[in-house]
């Protein structure tokens, strides 16, 4: 269970203006639920994810995960139980490291980074098996540097890495926005399968209304730092992407 209580964040612009990115948000997310967050530019959706992940610190309010107050924890400490996928497909992997080395980092996310060599034959086989399921031919390239892969391949790997050691929470910030339609579909279907299979509490921020309708069991719309719509699983199924577009003035695609 993730509880968010009166969470607020205000930014000061270069001109000295105060901008309320998030304004006393309350939210209860049951374990294993998949929440889709939509909203216009500046509505606060990325700020919400950044606050949960710890990349930003909140001004006031609480973030409570399974009775632990985590709003003051640094991001690397929250990483033990929290995974993130960014819009930029290059953000989630270390480009100069090999594929298998990236996976090793994912495997030790909650462990001590010791002075032993963790990449042994068994681990390499594990990574190969996981990559084979992607069907992208990457299982024979585990010693290649991640830099040489395409954006879609990198995002798919990021997703596999994010779910390697079952995280309690998976945050996805427009994970398909920079991908071609085919890779986007692959990444989202893979994400959905992983989330369902492992019962992960997931957040998806998206600008794609068809994604917002198809995935997740709850839909939240943010506007000016406040929750303006909160739609449950049953009603969400009946939504029409074209109608959803009308919730926004501009800037959205189906």
């Amino acid at each position, binding site marked *: 269970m993730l509880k968010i209580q009166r969470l607020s964040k205000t930014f000061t612009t270069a001109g000295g203006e105060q901008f309320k990115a998030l304004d006393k948000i309350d939210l209860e997310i049951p374990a294993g639920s998949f929440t889709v967050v939509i909203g216009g530019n500046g509505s606060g959706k990325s700020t919400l994810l950044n606050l949960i992940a710890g990349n930003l610190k909140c001004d006031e309010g609480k973030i409570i995960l399974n009775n632990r107050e985590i709003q003051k924890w*640094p991001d*690397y*400490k929250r990483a033990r139980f929290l995974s993130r996928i960014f819009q930029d497909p290059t953000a989630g992997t*270390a480009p100069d*490291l090999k594929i298998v080395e990236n996976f090793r980092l994912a495997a*030790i996310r909650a462990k*001590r*980074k010791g002075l032993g*060599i963790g990449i042994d034959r068994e681990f390499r086989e594990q990574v190969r098996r996981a990559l084979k399921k992607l069907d992208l031919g990457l299982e024979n390239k585990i010693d290649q540097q991640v830099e040489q892969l395409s954006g879609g391949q990198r995002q798919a790997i990021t997703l596999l890495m994010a779910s390697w050691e079952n995280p309690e929470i998976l945050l996805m910030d427009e994970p398909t926005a920079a991908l071609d339609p085919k890779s986007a579909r692959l990444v989202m279907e893979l994400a959905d399968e992983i989330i369902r299979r492992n019962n992960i509490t997931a957040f998806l921020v998206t600008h794609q209304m068809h994604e917002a309708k198809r995935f997740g069991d709850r839909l939240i719309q943010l506007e000016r730092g406040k929750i303006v719509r909160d739609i449950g699983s049953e009603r969400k199924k009946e939504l029409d992407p074209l109608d959803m577009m009308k919730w926004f003035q501009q800037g959205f695609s189906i």
Partner: protein
Amino acid sequence: MFYLTAITLGLALGALCLGIFISLRIFNFPDITADGSYTLGGVITAVGLASGHSVIEVLILSIIGGMLAGTATGLIHTRMRLNSLLSGILVMTGLYSINLAILGRSNVTVPFDAASIFHGIEIFGQSIWNEFTTLLLVFCLMVGFLTYLLKTDFGLSMRAAGNNPVMARGFGVSADFIKVIGLAIANGFIAISGFLVVQLQGFADINMGVGIVILGLGAVIIGESIMNIFGCRKMWLRIAGVVIGSIVFRLVISLVLSAGVDPMWIKLLTALVVLIIVGLPGLIPSINKRIKLE
């Protein structure tokens, strides 16, 4: 013989180049602390050996000294958020006084009968060959150690933290903490060079580290270029290449000196050589494709 002297000095400076490799290539941190921590290793060694301490004691003290210097730079950079160059300059400047205090005067000669790492191997008639053999062993040890370290889980975290800090933090690596540790290790290596060079030359001088960081930088880039030309991507070859770069650099300088150039111009020439290696690929894009530099 003339070349062997250059190669030997290049090997002794190899540890310095490995240190620069760690800070510059793993953390993208141009670490000027090197000027001070190299001298620190040197002065600890000279004073320690002159006062009758053993090689091992002096080595350990030198490494600790270097690591403390690196830790200071790392903490200033990560805690006080000073930029990398300024953090290094501050510690380097402070170290000048510390080095002078340890040395007591501007230079100290190591007595001929003092202990020395180069007394360990005496199989050849000419001492230069013994020194060369000793340094070759040291070279193998250091390359082996660093290769192993970078392949461990800790080493992977270090490389990820330098390569993509956001991603590293996302996988539970405290990028700031590991940067401090990394700079400590880098400056430990650099101090080992001071330790070796002082025993090779028989004296320590307060100014022995001036501009040494440029030498390390040049060696790292020469080494990488050589390895890229031969298409070597393996980690141990990249690391060994850095020391080879150091040797090549010393050979070039020796050649210039033997051509009759006044030693006064050495620093200027060194700077120019590094400028050419670093700057040329930027001017001629076709080289840039071949030799990947940042």
